[in-house]
């Protein structure tokens, strides 16, 4: 009797073990499949994000001649020098002026244009397509066009202003301050405001008409409807747009480099231009990497806010 029970228990135990082993094997296979499916993404991520990032941090501890990538370990000297000299801080200030200036105008123009394009108007589809033109055009082409518009001798801007009697002598748009910074900010706003238009227009189309009807019944005029209905509805999308565009504008290089080269003096030299100058004009890749790492740390703040924001949206 006892022997029979023991035998039954042993069989039951074996079955249990087999079932458990089978489950584990399946799970392992699934896990393996998961790893294999995600591996290409991880490899690409490591190659284009992790490796350059670690490489930049590593290089920032050396004094390195760019063409040979040979140099000596200097520890934190690059950072100490960077923080103690005025160049970094003045370029950071310039970067913030550029970012805040151009971003504000992008939001202003973008929201305004999205509101216009949301109305029932002739050629609305065509207008919606054309408005994207500055965003899609190559930066090099855009800058060439604007440099001709700004040209002191043949530019249409000066010609227009002189013929209107507003100025009597051609203006220098890119070679003196504050004109250079204002011009760069305006061109940046023109180039990137369509991104805001696209995002805001998409959100405007999802706002229920009932909200506007209710507001009208309550006696709200167009301005009140904008501030009490439209703007609160746009708030979430605007926060995301501002965070993304702030990150992108903060690291903008080609537009400023091609328009002013950072001049006059260093007055439009933002941090990306400073990194470029250190790396390739002065051939000091170590110092350039230190500047780049500092930029990354500053942008990390924006990224953390963005991640936190999107996470909280997902939770709600």
């Amino acid at each position: 009797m006892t022997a029979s029970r023991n035998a039954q228990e042993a069989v039951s135990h074996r079955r249990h073990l087999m079932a458990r082993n089978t489950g584990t094997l399946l799970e392992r296979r699934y896990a393996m499949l998961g790893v294999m499916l995600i591996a290409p993404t991880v490899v690409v991520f490591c190659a284009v994000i992790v490796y350059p990032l670690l490489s930049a941090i590593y290089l920032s501890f050396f004094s390195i001649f760019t063409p040979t990538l040979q140099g000596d370990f200097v520890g934190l000297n690059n950072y100490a020098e960077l923080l103690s000299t005025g160049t970094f801080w003045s370029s950071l200030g310039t970067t913030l002026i550029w970012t805040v200036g151009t971003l504000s105008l992008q939001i202003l123009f973008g929201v305004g244009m999205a509101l216009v394009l949301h109305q029932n108007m002739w050629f609305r589809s065509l207008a919606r397509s054309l408005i994207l033109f500055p965003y899609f055009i190559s930066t090099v082409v855009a800058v060439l066009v604007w440099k001709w518009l700004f040209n002191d001798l043949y530019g249409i801007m000066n010609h227009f202003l002189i013929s209107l009697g507003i100025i009597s002598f051609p203006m220098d748009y890119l070679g003196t301050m504050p004109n250079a910074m204002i011009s760069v900010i305006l061109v940046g706003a023109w180039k990137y405001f369509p991104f805001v238009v696209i995002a805001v227009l998409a959100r405007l189309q999802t706002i229920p008409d009932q909200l506007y009807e209710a507001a009208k019944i309550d006696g709200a005029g167009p301005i009140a409807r904008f501030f009490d209905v439209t703007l609160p509805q746009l708030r979430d999308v605007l926060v995301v747009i501002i965070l993304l565009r702030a990150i992108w504008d903060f690291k903008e290089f080609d537009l400023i480099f091609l328009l002013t080269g950072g001049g006059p003096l260093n007055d439009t030299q933002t941090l990306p231009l400073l990194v470029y100058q250190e790396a390739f004009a002065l051939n000091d890749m170590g110092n350039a990497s230190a500047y780049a790492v500092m930029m990354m740390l500053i942008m990390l703040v924006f990224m953390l806010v963005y991640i936190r924001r999107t996470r909280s949206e997902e939770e709600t």
Partner: protein
Amino acid sequence: MINGKTSAKGISRRTALKGLAASTALAATPFSIARAQSDVTLRWWSPQAAPAQVEAYQLQIANFKAATGIDVQFETTSDEGYAPQLAAAFSSGEVPDIVTHLPSFAVQSYYANGLIEPFNDVIDAIGADDYFPGANDVFRAADGNYCGTGIGNSAANMLWLRRDLMAAAGIDKAPETWDELRAAVSAMQTGGLFGAPLPYGRNSMTSLIFIGFIHQAGGQVFTPDLDVAIDNEGTRNALEFYREMREFCPPGATNYSWGESLTAFVSGATATGIYTGRVLANVNNQNPGIAEHVTCVRYPRISTDVAPWTFNDFPSVFIPAQSKNIEAAKQFGAFLFDPEGYIKQLHAAPGHVLPVLQSINNNPMYQDNDIIQRYSAEVELMAESAAGGFNLGYESAAHKSNEKAGEIIGSNVISELVQKVVINGDNADTALSDASMAIEAIVKG
């Protein structure tokens, strides 16, 4: 299948003769290249890539391929962009096999860091005795080797004038001194016409041109032993004169580089110009109405007691040491001076890039060019000026070769000095002291 008949139809008699001439030229070179290396493709970089120049390069490439079977791929870089592109190329090991038209000081800097192949045997293959005397001095490195050679000369700071405007303003001779220049541009500047297109931008042109002004005032940036010496009376006088000239320049000159400065004169917006001989071709092509009035002289200096100083960036040829086809690249380097292709290359921008070989300068084929014949006096003067020209890497015959010149130009220290004094109105002594310290820091590394 290609039979003899088809082949004969595909190649003209002229092409066949060209190929024969090229093969003969190559046979004279000492490089041991096996013929018909169809698997080798050389990469050739140059910032000089106007359409007519590229067309000339393609002829040289075709002739070289006909003679050797080696193909060459031409790739464009730029005056402002070559440094980052080459830095990336050197650091990755993916270098071009041959590079042309970069300034001599860049070549010296790369050679000093072991990035360039010595060029002695190529110079020998071209014919060292055929060069104008001293033409290769600027390429002699500290170890006694040549780091490259000149593919041409350039007189980049010639003063371009218009005789019609001078006559209208009652100016009977070209200015030789700064006082005369100031008076001349003042007289010629009338409504809508500016006196001069001097660059005041934060860029390499402003630095390179202003170094000329320093020397034209009797100053220097470095001593012959390469101690920093920019803080001198000559530089102060140059800054003062450059500041005074601002009122005769277009408002946008604060952002001018080579292209804008050239266009301002060629289009007729300024009475004088400062550039190489490219002015001649551009005026004839783009504004022929003023072509008969255009002439050039050496840029004026503070007084006739100071010798003229011509800025020659010594457009170069060199071969990166990491090239996997060094022997083929050397053969191509020598082949670039084969008369047919070299003359076509020089004719692509007559007067802009001037020959470094005496045999080419005296070659009837070279002289057989409308612009060179029409402006023979100007071309002759530019050739003479360029032959005695200098740049920051080689400030005078007494100066050592300066390996830091490229970084100093790239740092914009000198153009910023100009902007501080001229645009911001900063104290010249303070600005000079700052510039001097900045250059010192670059030199020390």
